[in-house]
């Protein structure tokens, strides 16, 4: 394991994660399609997961990998609920553009 | 028998009144208020006989709040004031018909309950609960049974409610801070013992001051007063001016001064000056009021300003004078508002310019009204003089100019009260008929006048009752 890090270097993992995370953020901010927003969130989650794994290896500590399992489980649950909501929204409004979701207006 | 009995009587009375139906409610309420008066007199006798009438029970363990009621002379004097005025106030309403009377009278008793609790409570949080509890009934009384345009009334009453509530919150914060310092206890003795730095005391003092200054009211925190007095039904006005104002003044003596004595001493002059400017300001504004109840409201402002100033002198005379004047003012202001109500029952107006020439139609009423007016301007021989003299004397000990400026009330007070009396009672006979006081009305007025004159010449029972507890409080204040 150690030699993989030696070959590539922890910095590159961090850069990759940051790039992935930013892609996620911009996806969330710019896209209007709820499913794509959703996917962007997943990318952000996975960016963090990747970072967890990288650091876990770097520190020789298994805790990080344990966290990743938790986070993947939560993400799976979230996807299940989220998609269910999206389906419900689609059935009600006939669209899944987030611009149409104005019910939270104060 | 201890002081909790009187609270129980009033609380049961409130429920009994509510369940007795609209017809019986006034009588039931009167009965229970008289029972409370009787009970307080028995308590007084027991207290004078040296019996311990205080109560202390654990109530909530975390935070440590006790159900502690302190039956000392000062508290007892205020309870007596409440218990004596309450039947008079209820009885005075007998000439009026109220919709949903059961609710009305139940609220009056409930308010008496809360106010009595405030005067007795010896635990900071319990005291705070009673203090806020007293606000709820008067809010409904003024809102539902008040007079004038509903929107206007709502505006005035809601302002009053929020204003006083907001002020009290600072007091709550102060209490919480104090209890942290006192190892979680809210008991008044523990709070007295808390050692605070001068800076802390100032903040505590100001927090209390905000609560009390709004309640009393001291200028410039008085803006709720005149409008609420005008809009509330007379019974509500009497409760407010006769007793509720005294809650603030009483609390200054019981809580604010002993807990933050250093701040009180340091800034004494400022607070006395504030009280005295209330005297002058209130008197001057009262001169040009067109509505009787508003005029009386401003006169109240002037009187309580003087009482507050006396309390802040931190002398025995000042505190004693303040308490005497509180009691005297309680009676006289209830009498005056009642007189205004008697006129309203006949003329359906509170506008001074629509009155006049009543004296030739109803000499008895005119005489009684005049006695009340004279008591209010502290003519010697009335209880108010005893109070006002002591108060002014205590102010003169601090600085003679305080006495001179505060004493301007005897000139300005005479000016606006006599002007009002002249415009309301004297002059050509009014074309509208004015029936002289009925028996019921007469009884209330005679009781009030009797009390004022009796204690005017023989205030010793009251002075003897309050002096020891005031001395105890002064010892706490001067312990450092």
């Amino acid at each position, binding site marked *: 394991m150690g030699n993989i890090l030696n070959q590539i270097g922890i910095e590159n993992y961090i850069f990759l994660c940051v790039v992935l995370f930013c892609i996620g953020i911009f996806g*969330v*901010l710019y896209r*209007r399609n709820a499913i794509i*927003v959703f996917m962007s969130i997943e990318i952000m989650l996975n960016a963090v997961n990747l970072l967890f794994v990288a650091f876990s290896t770097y520190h020789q500590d298994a805790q990080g990998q344990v966290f990743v399992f938790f986070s993947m489980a939560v993400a799976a649950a979230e996807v299940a609920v989220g998609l269910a909501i999206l389906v419900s929204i689609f059935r009600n409004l006939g669209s899944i553009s987030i*611009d149409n*979701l*104005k*019910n*939270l*207006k*104060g | 028998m201890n002081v909790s009995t009187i609270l129980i009587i009033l609380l049961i009375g409130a429920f009994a009144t509510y369940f007795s139906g609209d017809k019986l409610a006034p009588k039931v309420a009167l009965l229970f208020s008289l029972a409370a008066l009787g009970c307080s007199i028995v308590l007084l006798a027991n207290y004078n006989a040296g019996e311990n009438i205080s109560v202390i029970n654990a109530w909530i363990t975390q935070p440590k709040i006790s159900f502690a009621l302190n039956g000392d002379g000062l508290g007892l004097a205020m309870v007596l004031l409440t218990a004596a005025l309450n039947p008079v106030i209820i009885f005075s309403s007998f000439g009026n018909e109220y919709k949903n009377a059961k609710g009305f009278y139940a609220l009056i008793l409930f308010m008496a309950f809360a106010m009595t609790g405030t005067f007795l409570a010896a635990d900071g949080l319990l005291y705070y609960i009673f203090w806020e509890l007293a606000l709820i009934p008067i809010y409904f009384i003024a809102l539902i049974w008040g007079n004038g345009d509903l929107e206007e009334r709502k505006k005035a009453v809601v*302002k009053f409610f*929020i204003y006083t509530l907001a002020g009290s919150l600072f007091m709550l914060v102060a209490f919480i801070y104090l209890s942290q310092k006192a190892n979680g206890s809210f008991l008044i003795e523990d709070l007295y013992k808390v050692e605070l730095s001068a800076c802390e005391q100032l903040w505590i003092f100001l927090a209390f001051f905000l609560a009390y200054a709004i309640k009393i009211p001291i200028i*410039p925190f*008085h*803006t*709720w007063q*005149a409008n609420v007095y005008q809009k509330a039904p007379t019974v509500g006005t009497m409760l407010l001016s006769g007793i509720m104002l005294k809650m603030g003044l009483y609390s200054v003596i019981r809580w604010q001064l002993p807990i933050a004595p250093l701040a009180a001493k340091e800034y004494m002059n400022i607070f006395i000056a504030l009280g005295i400017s209330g005297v002058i300001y209130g008197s*001057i*504004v*009262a*001169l*040009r*009021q067109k509505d009787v109840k508003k005029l009386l409201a401003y006169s109240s402002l002037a009187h309580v300003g003087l009482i507050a100033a006396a309390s802040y002198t931190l002398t*025995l*005379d000042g505190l004693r004078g303040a308490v005497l004047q509180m009691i005297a003012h309680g009676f006289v202001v209830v009498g005056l508002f009642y007189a205004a109500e008697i006129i309203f029952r006949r003329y359906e107006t509170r506008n001074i310019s629509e009155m006049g*020439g009543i004296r*030739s139609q109803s*000499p008895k009423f005119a005489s009684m009204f005049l006695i009340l007016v*004279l008591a209010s301007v502290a*003519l*010697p*021989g009335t209880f108010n003089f*005893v109070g006002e*003299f*002591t108060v*002014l*004397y205590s102010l*003169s*000990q601090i600085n*003679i100019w305080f*006495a*001179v400026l505060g*004493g301007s009330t*005897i*000139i*300005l007070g*005479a*000016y606006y009260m*006599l*002007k009002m009396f*002249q415009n309301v*009672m*004297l*002059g050509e006979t009014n074309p509208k008929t004015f029936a002289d006081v009925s028996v019921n009305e007469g009884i209330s007025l005679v009781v009030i006048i009797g009390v004022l004159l009796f204690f005017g010449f*023989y*205030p*010793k029972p009251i*002075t003897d009752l309050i*002096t020891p507890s005031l001395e105890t409080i002064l010892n706490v204040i001067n312990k450092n």
Partner: protein
Amino acid sequence: MEMDTNLALVLVLTPFLGFLINVFLGKSLGKTVSGIIGTVAVAISFIVTLVLFNQISSTGKAIQVTLFEWIQISNLKIDLGFLLDQLSVLWLLFVTGIGSLIHLYSISYMHDDENMHKFFSYLNLFVFFMITLVIGSNLLVLFIGWEGVGLCSYLLIGFWHKNQDYNDAAKKAFIMNRIGDLGLLIGMFILGYTFKTLDYSELKQTILTIHYEPQIVWNISIAALCLFIGACGKSAQIPLYTWLPDAMAGPTPVSALIHAATMVTAGIFMVTRLNFVFDLATDVQTVIAIIGAITSLVAATIGLVQTDIKKVLAYSTVSQLGLMFLALGFGAYEVAVFHVITHAFFKACLFLGSGSVIHGLHGEQDMRKMGGLRKAMPITFWTMMISSLAISGVPFFSGFFSKDEILMTAFHHSIPLYVIGSIASIMTAFYMFRLMFLTFFKEFRGTEEQKHHLHESGSLITIPLIILAILAAFGGLISLPGHSWLNEYLAPLFTKVAGEEHHLGATEYSLMGVAVLGGLLGILIAYIKYFKQDNVPESDENITGLSKVLYNKYYVDEAYDALFVAPVNFLSKFFRDYIETGLSALVFGFGKVANEIAIQGKRLQSGSIGLYLFVFVLGMCAIISYIFLAQ
């Protein structure tokens, strides 16, 4: 001791009982009975006073009665108690004596009034308070009486309460008195904390034995000044005198009793009572003398041109009171007391006489519409004549002795004040005889109707007049120059040797001569102007020049209105319309601000998820950069 207490209680409480009976039963008892009850109540007090007077003048010991403790103040004990000594009993004699006569007079005078029982109840209440004032053993009991008589004065001036002008006059009297009362209170406070007592005898003890430090002397001076302000209010001195002429709105017996003989002398009583305080405040004494002299002159000049018969007498009262204060200012207390007594006799007689005239003319008070009443009302005329002679200082009438002593005292201390006092005296003689000539001589100037009904008043009115006239004529005997019973009687009260006994030398005789000549000169001018030349004062609109200023009382009322009343009213209006509204708006402002924040804040909740997310990310970035930057 028990006996004395009872006597004192009877003395005080009988008029009070009379008051109670008249208040509660007066209407059902009928007019005459209620009048008799009122009169008898005061007469009983008078009899008790005679007993006490007899006792005190024989034993020379004061009687001190303490009822119970009244007000507790930490270093001050105030009892409800009475002090019956030479001074108070002397005062009581003429208060209850003249009081009884005036009550008697009122039975007839007020008989046509529907509220006669009220009148008598107020009069009784007044006598009760006046007695309290006089016999109180400390300043605070005096204060009960002091304010109490003010109250009765208020009630009686406004007795005809349907007339708002009268009510205004009553209110004015009460408020001006209260200005003085505040002074009195402050004086009491200063004495209280300087000497720890307000009891006369203790005060005297303390003051006479205390070690004088500058602070204490200063306190005494200030206290004396404040007390004098109180006296100014009650005894109508500059600047608080304007209420007294207006107080003539009350029924005439009231003017006689309260506004001439008794209540207005309370200030002099108080100063005399506290002579040991004033003796130590020499600067204040000078002030008193100057104020007294100026008041006497100013009031006399106004009196010269008044046309209302009662107003003339009112200004004359103010002027005479000024003379008394002139004497007080020189520490000649017994002289002032002497003049108080003689003045009570002749001024009460004059007022009652004018009442008789007014009664005879059915309410007419304007002297321009009188004249020639001498024949129709001989008793009234002769009694008033005697009193006028007495007040003018014609030899051997009572006023001659008392006024002469005042002027003599003034001469020994200050020539300018003596001159002012003498001028005032000449004016007094002039306006009194102007009054007499206009009222009683020449032809009647009223309507035929009135002329037809002219008649002498009944015996209930004339008997008091005759008694008072006799007293006015011979009252001077109590203090003859050289051998004064009064000075000896009052001697125990004063710390100084009672006055300087004026040895009657050449100076004194010439002073006396000057005074007599002055008085005669005044009478002569009045004679020439109003008898020989037959002048009648102009009607109101024709008065011009100086006399217009005098007729309008130097416009002092107008000046006070502009200086004090108007600003206060303006301030009241200003406070009510601007400050009150402003403060109220400020409080509502808090609510408005909260509301405004809510309205603006609501806009953020646009419902656009995109925006929410954007803000969310922005927030995240902010937090993260903060964490990094903080490190």
